[in-house]
């Protein structure tokens, strides 16, 4: 069967080779190609430009866009793989407004992470550079501080040494002061002296008041006496004077016998002794003060020396202070000291251009295209093949109805199947999963219709080209797989060389995917998908015209095929065309005729014997089957040459049967 059908042989042998060849051309490399990155910054700082320069390379091309919206839209449309938005006048800062946003299309599942990682890596490289330079600044400052410290360390050592000397001097002064005897006799009864003095004073005061009272009394008595004296004529006055004198005497005697006075006297005497002891003590102190005076002199001299030392130290301290000031200045000159900023100088964030809850949403356009492509291709080509291989096909061919109507029937049936299937899938997906589909269902169905139309027409063309269901199926699968392989679904298109990718961009699978992706993920309108839609409509038109005009060619071929199938050739009452050969005969075409003649001779030998037994007949039948197998492969001219001999063998076998 395969040997007889050129297209079948071609697809069986070349189909897998074609896929390997296509995949080989497409993916025979290790890197990426033509990764396009859009960039935007309201004001491009040097830092932003340096990032752009870093991102630009042979594989990565960076294009500045007009606005953030254009930049992000470009990613949504798939024109660019990523959009990098630098904040206005980007600088290394802790400021929240200074950051880089990377917009990535997560719906491109097989490339999104690669793009993200690669762009991130490149940005990170630059950030590391910045981080390194910031660290360098720190380290340089540290180095300079170290030098300063080293320089000032000597001064500090000097200070320490001198300080030690000063400590010695202080110790010396201290010991000298220590040696000054500052003790005094604690036994001097100051309190007692004080109380004695107080007592004496009190005694004296008391005594004085008493004296005063006596004097007063005395005075009054004297006055009385004087009065009495003036009244001398009175004896009684004399008596009274006498009594007053006696009283005065008593008073005086009383005063002379007064204890206060004695106490005071005693106190004074004790005071005297105390004063003596104090006097002694004072002289002792005096001696000590003299010694102290000497020590003071020594201490003064030491102090002078210490002052000089301290002055020296002060100089050194000033130097150290200068050094510290210097260090402080240097440290304050470091602009970035924040460890977070140094380790991560530019805040970078990744923002997906489409926010969806599940991966199914990202996958959904691809799934739809796969369903559209494979169902359309397989169903349409199978329907055409079923029609072609159907017994009724010949009757249809010779009917007044044109073949194109049968193709149209296959077209509409397949389209109907695909569209119903899609509608069911869309509704189930919308209701069962967290994926909003139905809001744009008309657009989705429109794109699906156009795409299905293309793939159904392609399936009809393939079904018409191939002569058996098997080869048609194989051809359809090969084509489907080829389209799938260069669609970016399995391996990203970015792996392909630019030239191959330029072709892949026009792959109907890719165009349909782009449209469905824009509609489902980005809720795009018709104007967004118009370009892809135009290409698809063009394809549909070209393919429709091709199918229309080719149907005559295929009709004639089907007629020929029918004619070839029905060449009557009976094997023991059965049509050989319906009989599958037990084994294929792989003989070169040039040798087939010779081989057939040999087979005919062998068969004849078995049959022209006088007594043909059952074994001979069996062998003859075997040869006959081989003959038929080879006969079918021969061109008609060769068949005619040998036909009569085969007819003879057939008759002989029939007769013996």
């Amino acid at each position: 069967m395969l040997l007889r059908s050129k297209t079948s042989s071609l697809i069986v042998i070349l189909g897998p080779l074609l896929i390997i060849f296509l995949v080989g051309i497409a993916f025979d490399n290790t890197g990426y190609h033509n990764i396009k990155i859009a960039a935007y910054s309201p004001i491009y700082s040097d830092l932003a430009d340096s990032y752009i320069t870093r991102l630009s390379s042979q594989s990565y091309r960076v294009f500045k866009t007009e606005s953030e919206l254009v930049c992000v839209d470009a990613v949504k449309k798939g024109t660019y793989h990523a959009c990098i938005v630098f904040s206005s006048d980007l600088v290394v800062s802790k400021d929240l407004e200074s950051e880089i946003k990377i917009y990535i299309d997560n719906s491109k599942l097989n490339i999104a992470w690669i793009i993200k990682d690669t762009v991130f890596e490149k940005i990170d490289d630059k950030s590391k550079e910045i981080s390194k330079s910031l660290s360098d600044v720190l380290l340089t400052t540290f180095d300079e501080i170290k030098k300063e410290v080293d320089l000032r360390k000597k001064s500090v050592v000097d200070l320490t040494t001198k300080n030690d000397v000063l400590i010695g001097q202080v110790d010396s002064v201290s010991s000298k002061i220590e040696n000054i005897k500052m003790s005094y006799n604690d036994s001097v009864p100051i309190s007692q002296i004080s109380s004695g003095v107080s007592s004496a004073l009190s005694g004296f005061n008391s005594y004085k008041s008493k004296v005063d009272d006596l004097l007063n009394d005395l005075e009054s008595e004297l006055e009385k006496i004087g009065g009495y004296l003036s009244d001398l004529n009175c004896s009684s006055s004399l008596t009274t004077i006498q009594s007053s004198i006696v009283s005065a005497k008593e008073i005086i005697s009383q005063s002379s016998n007064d204890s206060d006075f004695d106490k005071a006297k005693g106190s004074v005497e004790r005071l005297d002794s105390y004063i003596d002891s104090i006097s002694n003590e004072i002289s002792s102190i005096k001696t000590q003060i003299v010694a102290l005076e000497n020590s003071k002199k020594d201490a003064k001299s030491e102090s002078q020396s210490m002052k000089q030392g301290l002055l020296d130290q002060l100089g050194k301290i000033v130097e150290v202070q200068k050094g510290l000031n210097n260090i402080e200045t240097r440290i304050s000159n470091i602009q970035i000291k924040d460890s977070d900023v140094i380790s991560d100088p530019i805040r970078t964030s990744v923002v997906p251009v489409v926010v969806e809850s599940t991966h199914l949403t990202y996958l959904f356009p691809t799934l739809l295209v796969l369903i559209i492509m494979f169902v359309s291709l397989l169903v349409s080509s199978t329907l055409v093949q079923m029609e072609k291989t159907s017994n009724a096909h010949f009757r249809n061919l010779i009917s007044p109805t044109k073949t194109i109507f049968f193709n149209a029937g296959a077209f509409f049936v397949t389209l109907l199947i695909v569209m119903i299937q899609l509608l069911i899938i869309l509704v189930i997906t919308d209701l069962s999963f967290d994926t909003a589909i139905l809001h744009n269902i008309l657009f989705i169905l429109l794109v699906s219709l156009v795409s299905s139309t293309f793939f159904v027409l392609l399936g009809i063309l393939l079904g018409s080209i191939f002569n058996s269901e098997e080869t048609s199926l194989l051809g359809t699968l090969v084509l489907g797989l080829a389209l799938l392989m260069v669609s970016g679904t399995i391996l990203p298109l970015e792996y392909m060389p630019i030239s191959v990718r330029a072709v892949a961009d026009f792959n109907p699978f890719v165009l349909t995917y782009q449209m469905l992706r824009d509609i489902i993920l980005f809720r795009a309108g018709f104007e967004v998908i118009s370009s892809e839609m135009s290409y698809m409509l063009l394809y549909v038109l070209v393919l429709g015209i091709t199918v229309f005009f080719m149907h005559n060619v295929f009709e004639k071929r089907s007629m020929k095929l029918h004619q070839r199938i029905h060449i009557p050739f009976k094997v023991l009452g059965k049509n050989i065309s319906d009989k599958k050969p037990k084994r294929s005969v792989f003989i070169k075409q040039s040798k087939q005729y010779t081989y057939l003649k040999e087979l005919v001779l062998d068969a004849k030998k078995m049959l022209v014997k006088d007594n043909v037994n059952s074994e001979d007949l069996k062998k003859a039948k075997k040869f006959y089957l081989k003959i038929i197998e080879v006969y079918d492969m021969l061109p008609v001219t060769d068949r005619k040459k040998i036909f009569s001999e085969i007819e003879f063998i057939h008759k002989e076998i029939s007769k013996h049967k």
Partner: protein
Amino acid sequence: MEDNVILKAKELSVEIDGALILEKMNLDVYSGELLGIIGLSGSGKTTLLSSLIGVFEPLTGDVYFAHTTKDNRKILKSVNRLKEAFRQKIGFSSQLPSFYSNLTVVENLKFFASFYNLDKYTRDERIKILLDLFDLYLFKDKIADSLSGGMKRRLDIACAMINNPKILILDEPTGDLDPILKKQLWYLIKKINEKGTTVILASHLVSDLELLCDRIVILADGKVLKIGTPLELKSSVLQGEKIIVESIPGNYTSISKEIESNKGVLNIVTEGQRLVIYSKTGTNVLKDILPILEKLKERVIEISMSKPSLDEIFENIVGKG
């Protein structure tokens, strides 16, 4: 006679895959006749039938169909030009039954009727007539694939006749059928033909066609070797008798050598255990044979003399061709 031509092949040559299958063939098919085409397998019968309905574009020449113009004139027009109009008027049954095996008998008939723009009444009437004619009424709701071989063949011809064709072309219609079914089918074909349908049929069963056909065309190597009524063929090809001899020990080579000298002998062939002698004057040859057999000490088992059949004429013609 020319006025009665419904289909005409003129200088028709057909080439398939570089091989010339039909070579400058001329053939007139008359309206209402039953034309049989006989030939060896691969002689071009099917190609001729297919070419007659315009399946193959001719290399040279053309096939013409008697077309009635609007002003009621009858002209011969190329079937390849008429195509759709011509196909409206023909029915074709190929060697393999050509219908949808997973549809019922009626569904198949309805489907093929849909090609001919028949109104529902006409369609149903035709289907009813065909079901009756082909004894398929009881099986009308059976899936076609479940029918027997004879039924399938009948259904196929019924499908070919759904448009009430002017010309019915049948290619090996009795191919797989047993003798009883064959007879039934031949009867049916005759009946169709008697109703006015021109029938062209190809078969390798020469003897059957002899009884059925008005005219017979003998094809070989893509050429018309002979054409005429069975009688014409018999008389034009072989005038004389056929003598069959079966003897023991059956030294037919020696017998043939001895009898060859007789001027009345046309041809001698050995057919298995028998010797067949074709002669112009059978009686004379028979007289000579008996002494020869005696001379060669052959014991006669059977000896007979008869007129040759169409099978033999065919073999004779094709053998010479």
